[in-house]
């Protein structure tokens, strides 16, 4: 399998008047062709900033300080705006959480779609329109020929997200980044969108990065998962490894703090104590050390490297060091099911 995306030691910070906010602090991961990569984390974990860094959409006062982002063998960090403009929308497309604010309210859907298509292809206006209608049809907008003349406000939330997906896929990108695309939608609409994206992936074959805080959606759609916390990668692995063989106290803590609809017995939730770190002044060691019940002295002083558990399954936790005490938490895993 070919790597289509390789992110190495990415550091992105925002320089505000209050000081440097270190949103991403050295995250590394790779993505192979055909992967649906989930990035899961809470607010402020750096998942969106990672995505925006890949898209070259970090604006002042933010800046990529360090690291490389290799897409299809090409280095994206340091590209000029013009060069990046050719990648963005054509090879990597993105959809956002709130389709109302990411569509322009004063232009019709047709206008916005045709603009994207014509910018990246040699199609005539007529061809582009036909292609746009075709795309709307594919994402399940009924009477696409008529609805294409609508304005965003005439669409419901679910339909707007469909229109966004149609626009994003109109130039046949190799990678689609979806940043919390269903968070603003109701569950029944979310199920429609998840289903749609799965179907479109089989048809178009693009890679997908799906960013969310919802572990349910992650289990549903992704094949590989990155767990982020405090701007760092805590654990990476296949979706089964992250859910059933996790080797990181934070990942396990997350699993234990959400209720399961399908559990027979009502169980008390096990919350994670404390609150997420302040990225203006992040802890010196592991970002999770202040909330981790297994924290050792080394955890407070130095962030752990990514230990390889099996191929592709890595966890950044000192407990995996061979000289660390053996803790049964990591073995006993998530609540027995």
């Amino acid at each position, binding site marked *: 399998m070919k790597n289509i995306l390789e992110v190495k030691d990415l550091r992105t910070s925002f320089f505000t008047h209050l000081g440097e906010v270190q949103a991403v602090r050295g995250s590394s991961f790779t993505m192979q062709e055909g992967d649906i990569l989930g990035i899961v984390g809470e607010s402020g974990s750096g998942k969106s900033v990672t995505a925006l860094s890949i898209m070259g959409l970090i604006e002042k006062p933010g800046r990529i300080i360090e690291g490389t982002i290799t897409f299809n063998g090409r280095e994206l960090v340091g590209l000029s705006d013009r060069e990046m403009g050719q990648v963005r929308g054509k090879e990597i497309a993105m959809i956002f959480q709130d389709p109302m604010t990411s569509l322009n309210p004063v232009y019709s859907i047709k206008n916005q779609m045709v603009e994207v298509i014509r910018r990246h292809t040699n199609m005539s206006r007529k061809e582009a329109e036909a292609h746009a209608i075709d795309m709307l049809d594919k994402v399940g907008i009924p009477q696409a020929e008529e609805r294409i003349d609508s304005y965003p406000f005439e669409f419901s939330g679910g339909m707007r997200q469909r229109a966004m997906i149609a626009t994003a896929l109109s130039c046949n990108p190799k990678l689609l980044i979806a940043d919390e695309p269903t968070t603003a939608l109701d569950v029944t609409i979310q199920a429609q969108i998840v289903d749609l994206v799965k179907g479109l992936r089989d048809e178009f074959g693009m890679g997908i990065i799906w960013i969310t*805080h919802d572990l*349910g959606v992650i*289990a549903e759609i992704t094949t590989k998962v990155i767990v982020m916390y405090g701007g760092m990668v805590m654990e990476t692995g296949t979706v089964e490894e992250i859910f059933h063989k996790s080797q990181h106290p934070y990942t396990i803590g997350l699993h234990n703090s*959400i209720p399961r609809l*399908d559990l027979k017995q009502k169980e008390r939730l096990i919350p994670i104590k404390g609150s997420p770190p302040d990225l203006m002044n992040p802890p010196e060691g592991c970002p999770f050390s202040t909330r981790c019940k297994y924290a050792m002295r080394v955890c407070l002083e130095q962030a752990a490297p990514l230990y390889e558990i099996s191929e592709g399954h890595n966890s950044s936790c000192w407990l995996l060091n061979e000289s660390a005490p053996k803790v049964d938490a990591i073995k006993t895993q998530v609540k027995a099911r």
Partner: protein
Amino acid sequence: MANDNNTQAILQVKNLKKYFPVGTGFFKETEKYLTAVDDISFEIRKGETFGLVGESGCGKTTAGRTILRLYEITDGRVIFDGVDITDISQKEMLPFRKRMQIIFQDPYASLNPRMTVTDIVGEGIDTYGLFKGKARQERIYDLLERVGLKCEHASRYPHEFSGGQRQRIGVARALAVEPDLVVCDEPISALDVSIQAQVVNMLEDLQDDMGLTYLFIAHDLSMVKHISDRIGVMYLGKLMEVCGSRNLYDNPLHPYTQALLSSIPIPDPIATKKSKRIILEGQVSSPINPPEGCRFASRCRYAKEKCTQVTPELRKLEKDHNVACHFAEEINA
């Protein structure tokens, strides 16, 4: 779980309606109404948690606020602890306000940024003259400790707290007047996953300690199922199904509930692969002057002619299990 007989209802809601006029003008008589809550009936028993779930716009929040008479009731009755509070004056309402409190969704918008925590929590205490002077301060410290904050937080302002901590302040404020019923209006939706469990556990502990009754309103069905004893499922202003929370998941009888449950992603990739999905077509229709018949008919895969003509009543199908569907027996046979 409570039985039908041995626990009394602390709150009875009978045929409650709340309509909002839309498109009103100065000279124009309004003819259009948004039927936010349309003829719902249920009761909450002492000491239990009643969950109200539904998608956005289904009227669950409006229902909660109308019950507290934060909105004027369009029609129907609200009976609290045996007293009909539907038509009593705001002044007569005061003693009931002390017994019915609310926790809001957004902990950033529901705390006055210019008041200290002491002022916020103490406001209700002063209104009802419960404690004065030193006793008042001690009461506030006690409340803060109960919700997991510290005494030194008392003199701080809301902006100095994180979202989870602010929600704790909101809880302390609600509990300050020793209520019987607390309406929790999406109290955890604005919080991070790892913080949600903290707040839910706290609410459960407080319920045990203080004998509280909760009306828990949320759209996250997994969390509602976790915390509730009984659940009501709303759709476009109507109650579709009311039953015990365990039963709702094991044996949902209404086609909407079935679809809703199957759309909730289960955080387990192995279970997900086994589960079957019902993907609902279309979207929620408009609550403005809705047509006769079942509100869900346009999206229901079992819909027949009768469904678009006659509005189904909530009826008892099994013990402690009420459904508003004409064909519930056939569908689940």
